[in-house]
C-alpha cells in the first residue's frame, strides 16, 4: 500500500462534495454572515473610511478582507466535520479502511478547501456588484491559489483541535475564541497600521493578515506588504498547521 492514495483521497473529497451540495441550508448559513458584513460595512462606511491606502475606496479594501473571513469560518468548520463523523460513527468506517492516515487527512483537506474556495468565490460576486474592480485575470487566478493556501492553513488548525477534543460544544467554544481575534487582527475590516503598537504586533503573528493583504494585492492592487513576503509567510504557516493537524489526527484515538 502506498502512503498517498489518490483514489481514496478522491473518495473522501467526493463524499464531502455530495454532503456540501446536499446541505444547502448550511451553505446559506455560512455565506450569510460575511455577506452581511460586506453589504452593511461596505455601504455604511463608504464615505467615512478615509485612511485606507490611497487610491482605493472602502469597498475595494473590504471585499478581499471579507473573502478572508469566509475562508476562515468555512475552514475551521472542516474540523467540526471530523467531530460529527466521530459522533455518528462514520469515522470508524474511514479508519478501518486500508488507507493511510495521510491520505485521509489529504482527502478531508481537499474537501474542506474546495468548499471554502467555492464560498469565497460566491462572496466575490456581490462584491463585484457593489463596485469592486478586479485588476485582471492573472490577479484573479493568483487569488484563487491564495484562497487554497489560506483555507488549508485553517483546516490544519481545525484538524489539530478536532483530533484532541471529543466534544463538539468545547470545540465550537475554542473555535469562536480563536476565530474572532484572528479575523479582527487580520486587517480585514481596517488597516492594521491604525492599531496601537502593542496590538499591531499581534496582527503580524496572525497568518490571516498576510492572506488578506495578498488577496488585496492580487484582486485590487492594494497590498501594504510586499506580495512575495505575504506568499512566503502564508506557505510556511500552511505547511506548519497542516503538518501539526495531520500528526495529531494520525495519533488520535478513534474511540
Amino acid at each position, binding site marked *: 500500500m502506498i502512503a498517498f492514495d489518490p483514489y481514496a483521497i478522491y473518495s473522501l473529497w467526493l463524499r464531502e462534495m455530495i454532503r456540501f451540495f446536499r446541505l444547502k441550508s448550511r451553505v446559506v448559513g455560512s455565506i450569510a454572515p460575511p455577506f452581511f458584513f460586506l453589504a452593511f460595512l461596505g455601504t455604511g462606511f463608504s464615505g467615512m473610511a478615509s485612511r485606507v491606502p490611497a487610491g482605493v475606496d472602502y469597498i475595494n479594501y473590504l471585499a478581499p478582507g471579507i473573502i478572508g473571513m469566509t475562508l476562515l469560518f468555512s475552514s475551521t468548520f472542516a474540523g467540526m466535520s471530523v467531530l460529527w463523523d466521530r459522533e455518528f460513527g462514520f469515522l470508524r468506517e474511514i479508519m*478501518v479502511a*486500508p488507507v493511510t492516515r495521510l491520505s485521509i487527512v489529504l482527502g478531508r483537506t481537499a474537501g474542506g478547501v474546495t468548499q471554502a474556495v467555492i464560498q469565497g468565490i460566491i462572496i466575490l460576486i456581490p462584491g463585484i456588484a457593489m463596485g469592486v474592480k478586479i485588476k485582471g485575470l492573472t490577479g484573479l487566478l493568483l487569488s484563487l491559489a491564495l484562497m487554497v493556501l489560506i483555507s488549508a492553513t485553517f483546516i490544519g488548525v481545525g484538524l489539530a483541535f478536532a483530533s484532541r477534543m471529543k466534544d463538539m460544544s468545547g470545540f465550537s467554544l475554542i473555535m469562536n475564541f480563536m476565530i474572532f481575534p484572528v479575523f479582527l487582527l487580520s486587517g480585514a475590516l481596517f488597516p492594521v497600521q491604525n492599531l496601537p503598537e502593542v496590538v499591531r504586533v499581534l496582527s503580524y503573528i496572525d497568518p490571516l493578515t498576510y492572506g488578506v493583504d495578498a488577496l488585496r494585492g492580487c484582486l485590487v492592487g492594494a497590498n501594504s506588504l510586499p506580495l512575495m513576503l505575504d506568499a512566503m509567510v502564508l506557505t510556511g504557516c500552511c505547511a506548519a498547521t497542516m503538518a501539526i493537524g495531520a500528526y495529531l489526527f494520525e495519533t488520535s484515538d*478513534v474511540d
Partner: protein
Amino acid sequence: MEHAIETRGLVKRFDGLVAVDDVNLSVKRGEIFGLLGPNGAGKSTIIKMLTTMLRPSAGEAYVWGHHIVRERDAVRSCIGVVFQDPSVDGKLTARENLDFHGRMYGMPGAERKRRIAEVLELVELSDKADVLLEDFSGGMRRRLEIARGLMHRPHVLFLDEPTLGLDTQTRRYIWDYIRAMNREEDVTVVITTHYMEEADNLCNRVAIIDHGRIVALDSPTALKSMIGTDTLTLEVKDGMERLRDVLLGFEWVRSFDASNGYVNLSVDSAQSRIPEVVLAACRAGVRIRSVSVHEPTLEDVFLRYTGRSMRDETVKGDLVRALMRR
C-alpha cells in the same frame, strides 16, 4: 496457514483495569465463530484489537496470517467490520455509502457497480438503494452495514453485536443473511453477542468470555452436553417413595432428586420419555400434577463456569445502555 485468526496471550489493559486477560484462541477458516459473554466481558475489546482499532498491551494475534500490529494495513485489507454502533453517513444514500466504501478499498468502477447490486440483493435492500440512510429504520441500517462489510469480499467478517436492539423478527432475518453469506461468499465470520440463542443458533463454535478470559470454548452442542442431559421435572402429590422405586427401575433414568413435592430426573431426550414416566406413575398409583422439560442451554454453561447467571447481568447492562442512549 490454516487458521483465519490466531491469538497468543492477548492482553488489553486500560489504566490498570484488565479488559482482556491472556486470550488464546484460533478461528478456523470458513466457520462462524462466536464470542459470547455479558456486557463488559471484553468481547468488543478483542474485536477492536483484531480489527486494528486498538493496540494490545501484550501478546500477539494474526488475522489471515497478518500480524495485527506490524501489518495493520494488510490486516485491514482482508477484513470487513460491522461495528456495534451505527457507522454510516446519514446524508448519503445506500448506494453512495457503498460506493464510498468500494473506493476506499480500491475497487474499480465496474466491479463496484456489480458488487453493490449483489450485496444489496443479499440483504434485500435493492429497492432502497437511492434512499438517504437517515431515513432507514434500525434494522435496515444494520442490514446495509452487513452488506457494506461484505462488499469488498473480505476473508474475515467481524460482527460486533449485530442484532443488538433489534426486534425478534429482524434478528432472525439477520441470522439468515449471516448464514447465507458464510455459505455463499465463503467468508469466515466472527460474531460477538450476549444473546444465548444467537450464539446457539448461528455459531459453529463458541468461546464463552467472562472478565476478559475465555472460560469455555467448543461447539454449542458440545458445551451443552458438558452440562449433562435434559432435566424432567415432575410435580407429585404423594407417593414419592413408590415413584422412586418405579422410575429408578428404568435404565434411562440417570438420577432422581426429590424435594418439596418436586422430582428432578436426569434423562436423555426428555420429551420422548414423558409418556412412559406418566404411565409408570399411574400404574404405581402416584398422581402427577405437572411435567416440565428443561434442556441445557448456553446459559447453563455460563452459570456452570462462572457461578453467575448471564441473563441477570445482561438485562441490567441493557437497561443502563438504553438509559445512556437517551
